[in-house]
């Protein structure tokens, strides 16, 4: 009797888990494994991936050109993470202390850019900052400048684009952890004589660390692999890892080299994720 129930449970579980498991393995895990395999291959005359196996693709990534590219991408993404954190923290703090009705409205206002079309949002920013765009038109008509400001096609433009695109992904997790925050802790700290800065550094930041970490991962990962932002805001003059990968799978048609760079990007992202889980666990253990 118990045996049959257990068997039936097992069959049910198999039926429920099979489609999802199949899909994730076949269209997620397997393709990623394929990247690993192809990164060790060379190319035939038609520039298709072919044997023999080689390390040449990885040797090529040690070219100073690509090392600098990696450093630039990681650096710009870290800067993006830091800037979004500095902007989002006070916003989330403000939102978390609002009356419930206003909190819901503000959450909705963050959720809309969180979910709506990233390409179109980035284009909207690019449109605003174009040489003949609304900002320059306004500046010229006010006589604040004689010729249009060149705002696009600079690293700064890409940074603005990344901050603009990723900001909602920092606000939301911060807000979620601040909303659950026990505010009597602040009173306790202040009653014990801590000033505002000390309260922030010693009480608020450690207790909201899970939200800060989650937001940082949600911002850093898409930034370091970004393609749309660097393409639209960089105007073809700024290069980042994501754009190089796209090029290798597009015009350059060098899939093995593109795979090698993709794999290195995955390593960067995995390191970030590991730090996230490490620090995250440490925080929980400390509590």
């Amino acid at each position, binding site marked *: 009797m118990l045996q049959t129930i257990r068997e039936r449970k097992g069959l*049910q*579980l198999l039926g*429920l*888990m099979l*489609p*999802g498991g199949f*899909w*994730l393995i076949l*269209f*997620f*895990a*397997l*393709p*990623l494994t*394929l*990247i690993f395999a*192809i990164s060790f291959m060379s190319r035939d005359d038609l520039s298709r991936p072919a044997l023999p196996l080689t390390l040449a693709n990885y040797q090529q990534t040690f070219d100073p050109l690509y090392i600098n590219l990696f450093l630039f991408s990681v650096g710009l993404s870290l800067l993006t993470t830091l800037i979004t954190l500095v*902007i*989002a923290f*006070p916003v989330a*703090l*403000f939102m978390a*202390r*609002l*009356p*419930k009705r206003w909190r819901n409205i503000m959450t*909705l*206002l963050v959720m*809309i*850019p*969180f*979910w*709506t*079309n990233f390409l*179109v*949002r980035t*284009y*909207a*920013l690019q*449109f*605003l900052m*174009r040489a003949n*765009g609304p900002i320059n*038109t306004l500046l010229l008509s006010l006589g604040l400048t004689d010729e249009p400001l060149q705002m696009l096609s600079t690293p700064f433009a890409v940074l603005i684009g990344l901050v603009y695109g990723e*900001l*909602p992904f920092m606000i939301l997790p911060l807000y979620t952890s601040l909303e659950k925050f026990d*505010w009597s802790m602040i*009173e306790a700290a202040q009653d014990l004589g801590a000033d505002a800065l000390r309260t922030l550094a010693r009480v*608020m930041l450690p207790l909201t660390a899970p939200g800060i970490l989650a937001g940082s991962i*949600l911002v850093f*990962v*898409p930034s370091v*692999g*970004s*393609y749309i932002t660097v393409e*639209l805001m960089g105007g073809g003059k700024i290069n980042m890892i994501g754009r190089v990968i796209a090029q290798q*799978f597009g015009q350059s048609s060098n899939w093995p080299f593109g795979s090698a760079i*993709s794999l290195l990007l*995955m390593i960067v*992202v995995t390191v970030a994720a590991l730090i996230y889980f490490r620090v995250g666990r440490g925080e929980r253990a400390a509590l």
Partner: protein
Amino acid sequence: MSSDTSTIVVMGEREEIFPQEPAERQRIRPGRLALVTITLLTFAFLYAPIIILVVFSFNDARTGAVWQGFTLDWYARLFRNERLLDAALRSLIVAVVSTAGSVVIGTLTALAMERYRFRSKTFWDGLLYMPVIVPEIVAGVSLLLFFATAGVERGFLTLAVSHIAFSMPFVYLTVRARLADFDLSIEEAAKDLGADEWVTFRRITLPLLMPGIVSGALLAFTLSVDDFIISFFVTGKGWDTLPIYIWSALKRGVTPEVNAVSAMLLVFSATLVVASLILQRRHSY
């Protein structure tokens, strides 16, 4: 909790508790003002580009950003642009099919992960979070490699299959969140009253899960309609979706039509998101 009172900022609490301390009060006010200012500026930064784009999609000028008067001409042109209409139709077809697929698969997976105990659970948990960690561009090129290696012709099928792969985990998360709050005694009551497992599922579990499922479906639909990067790599001849059409139009140069179609897409997905969120909130336990 005290957060529903009129005090807004952390230090505001202090103001209430010790209103007689003037020195304290003077230090508090600028803090609150700063928070309000930063928040307002941030929301202006998030929304200004979108609003300006929508406004200029009604501008009666071929180029430039000088306001020349109101026109609906660019929108009228959209509906005469066959290539764009075709792309929009393809986006809709892919979104409907992939939403149906990811809703079924995501719901089944949520049931398995929430209701059963099994050894490989941690592994699947990790795998289901992968789409958050793997950069879209890597997911896109890996699928391209996969389909090319397997010799599958790229087009509708590869689009639908890939869209299910990236939107299914979101349906899974939404449905699982709802399952986690589920009151199991309702199911037990149904069974005590003589309903078998299938009837209990169909008449009790599924209706109660519906808000979660519909809200997950709306998200999956939005993700599919909006997706550019993965679609860009897995699509084939004759299967350009709307975001791919917009992308190639942008590469050719900005036109008022692009502004108009972008504005429409923004309003469309914003509506779906709001609907999904309202549904989640209204039906929360």
